[in-house]
């Protein structure tokens, strides 16, 4: 806490935490190209997942379950759907008076107009927002990972170590380590070196893009760097190296459990297929750490007499007359008679006509696959139908 300057509204230490979503490649106006058509008209965190969720639900639920009550969601790429989904945070219990969720988009000031040029720059641009809560600690997160994590435990370590920065890390295999930002630590978990995608990794601790900062220190680094024209734009590329160079106490916090970056079509598909396993390691049905999502009231699932469901996850609002094999069917999806859907994730409100054949695919929201249509991918090349895209013959009106 900031020595009481937070005043009467700071109830517990947790109130000083802030979740800020930093969408690496959504910032700077790039379109999250690795998810291709799926992020043409929406930001990555609002991409549907697991039949009933959007990707950001996992982060927002983690924040709520960890007791964080003040959350800023930084975004600038196609925010409409994300804003609508998040609304005032009530779906995740993040609607406390004097706290809650705030969407932070680019804005103009008397100094002019500026889009966010990177994750750290976005924080710099929102200093006034953060200062208004006078937090002692700032938690920085990505909104595009699927995992369950108690940030309170990470904060406890941060405090115990008297760290200026704690970085959440995941032990990965040494093979995979070449694809991540790798933290090399000493015996006390202190980070002594950071290597981005090292050819020969010295450690297997991959950064999860989860940071806890002492706000005073980070604030000083940001304002000083921008005042001198050498602005720290990105946390991984700029801020961590600067902290290490200045010998700020920077520690790693190791997370053990299911964690998945769903930044590509293939990883998104794979994560959905893993989710489909009735005993998935994410343990989605665990009621002590619920994953919340926006509330909506759809009719129950209707299964006709012609349907077959075999290792299928289906939610309310769906209407199934076809055959679903090892697939996820989201809300309000219609599947016609004779259709066969296999190893596929179908997003909300899609319409799958009669006798359609879909295999190894992701079907976008509001997509239409007309009667007799085919969408066939392979494990290595997942087929994708974009949002609202119409393929195959149209159904008769």
């Amino acid at each position, binding site marked *: 806490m900031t020595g009481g300057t937070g005043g009467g509204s700071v109830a517990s230490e947790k109130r000083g935490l802030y979740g800020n979503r930093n969408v690496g490649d959504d910032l700077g106006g790039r379109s999250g190209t690795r998810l291709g058509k799926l992020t043409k008209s929406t930001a990555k965190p609002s991409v549907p997942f697991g039949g009933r969720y959007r990707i950001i639900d996992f982060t927002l639920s983690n924040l709520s379950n960890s007791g964080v009550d003040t959350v800023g969601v930084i975004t600038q790429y196609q925010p409409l759907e994300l804003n609508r989904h998040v609304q005032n945070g009530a779906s995740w219990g993040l609607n406390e008076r004097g706290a809650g969720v705030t969407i932070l988009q680019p804005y103009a000031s008397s100094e002019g107009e500026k889009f966010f040029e990177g994750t750290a720059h976005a924080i710099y641009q929102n200093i006034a927002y953060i200062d208004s809560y006078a937090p002692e600690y700032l938690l920085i997160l990505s909104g595009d990972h699927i995992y369950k994590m108690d940030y309170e435990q990470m904060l406890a370590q941060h405090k115990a170590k008297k760290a200026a920065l704690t970085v959440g890390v995941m032990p990965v295999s040494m093979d995979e380590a070449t694809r991540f930002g790798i933290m090399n630590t000493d015996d006390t978990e202190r980070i002594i070196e950071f290597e981005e995608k090292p050819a020969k990794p010295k450690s297997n601790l991959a950064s999860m893009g989860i940071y806890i900062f002492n706000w005073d220190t980070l604030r000083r680094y940001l304002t000083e760097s921008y005042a001198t024209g050498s602005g720290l734009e990105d946390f991984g590329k700029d801020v961590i190296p600067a902290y290490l160079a200045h010998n700020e106490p920077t520690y790693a916090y190791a997370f053990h459990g299911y964690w998945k970056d769903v930044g590509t079509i293939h990883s998104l598909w794979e994560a959905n297929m893993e989710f489909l396993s*009735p005993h998935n390691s994410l343990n989605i*049905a665990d009621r002590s750490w619920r994953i919340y999502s926006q509330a909506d009231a759809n*009719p*129950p699932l209707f*299964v*006709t007499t012609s349907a077959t*469901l075999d290792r299928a996850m289906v939610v309310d609002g769906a209407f199934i007359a076809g055959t679903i094999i090892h697939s*996820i069917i989201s809300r309000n999806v219609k599947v016609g008679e004779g259709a066969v859907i296999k190893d596929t994730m179908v997003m909300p409100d899609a319409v799958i006509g009669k006798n359609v054949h879909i295999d190894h695919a992701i079907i976008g929201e509001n997509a239409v696959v007309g009667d007799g249509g085919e969408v066939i991918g392979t494990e290595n090349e997942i087929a994708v139908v974009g949002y609202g895209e119409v393929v195959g013959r149209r159904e008769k009106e």
Partner: protein
Amino acid sequence: MKKGEIAAIIDLNEDGALGSLTAARPIGTLPFAGRYRLIDFPLSAVARANVYSVGLFMPRSSRSVQDHVRSGEAWNLDLIQGGAFLFPYVATRDYANAELRTRYYDNYSQFLRRSGAPYTVVMGARNVANIDLAAVLAYHKLGSSSITALYKNVTPNRVRADDPLLTLSELSTASAVLNASQQSLSGHEEKLPRFMEVYLLDTVYLLDLLDQASAAGEFARLPELLRDAVLEQNANAFEYTGYLALINAVDRYYQANMRMLQERNFQSLLYSSIPILTKSKNEVPTFFAHESKVSGSLLGTGGFIEGSVARSVISRNVTVHRGAVVEDSVVMQGSKISNGSLVRHAILDKGVVIGPNLVIEGTAEAPLVLSKNQTVFKPLDQEANTHA
């Protein structure tokens, strides 16, 4: 139609002989179609008509209503312009007391005055329908009476002795509400105007009725007052043509659920221009295992289905284990059916647990009812349950 032009009174003190199903809950919070409570239907009609103020007159067992309605957010009843006002139950014996009798009428009057709405709809929850109140209001404004009563024409085989019917005149007005047994029917009618226990009234007229009742020496509940008003005033009679189910007996409740399995009824009630709103729950998707068999059924979320389900209505969080068979049944939330058991023509209330290798079977006419949280690990004494 302006926003807030109608205020709504939903009276949850309704009669019905549903045995153990309504032992600890009013008819209004009976689960329906695997997803809803009966009260969702009037509340959705009211939300669709931009009603700001809804007075809920609570039954004796009111906790389930409060849990379900909460702030009324799901039906836009958390706006500053109005809200859901819950009026506590008043026991019948209290009406001997003149002061409490006055308070009964005063509760209604105060609510209506505060709403500022020129029209009031009075509904219950046991008539499941999808009512477009804007159309009813337009009809009411054209009519000459201060009170409009809603009915649906049904075939005589769907009318029971104590079902209320409207007595219709040539001029599309109703001169009385009488139970079928009180009417002199020829037996050759092709259709009968079954009263839906829904009224739309001018609010000032309703306030007059309440004032008169308050001044009168003996007590009459609101439904009686309104029936008398139809008799005295002749009501405008509005014919409703959508899906309707009257839930006042176990077999009717069962049949109404089964009718939802017909796509036509399902679409008519749940995909009309009036979306049926209900409180949402954060449940995980329902999982259908390898070798599960599901056919012609409705299912809620959070379920885990390894066995067979046919022609059944299954609420959320239901587990059907491997080898278990559920047919022609209504299974409420949280129930579990263990491996090898057969459930047929049955209604399983919330949280029922059926052990392995048992047969739970009723008939289509007299479905077997298992009461809330009942645990069955040996063959049932069926007699006890069919009459529950």
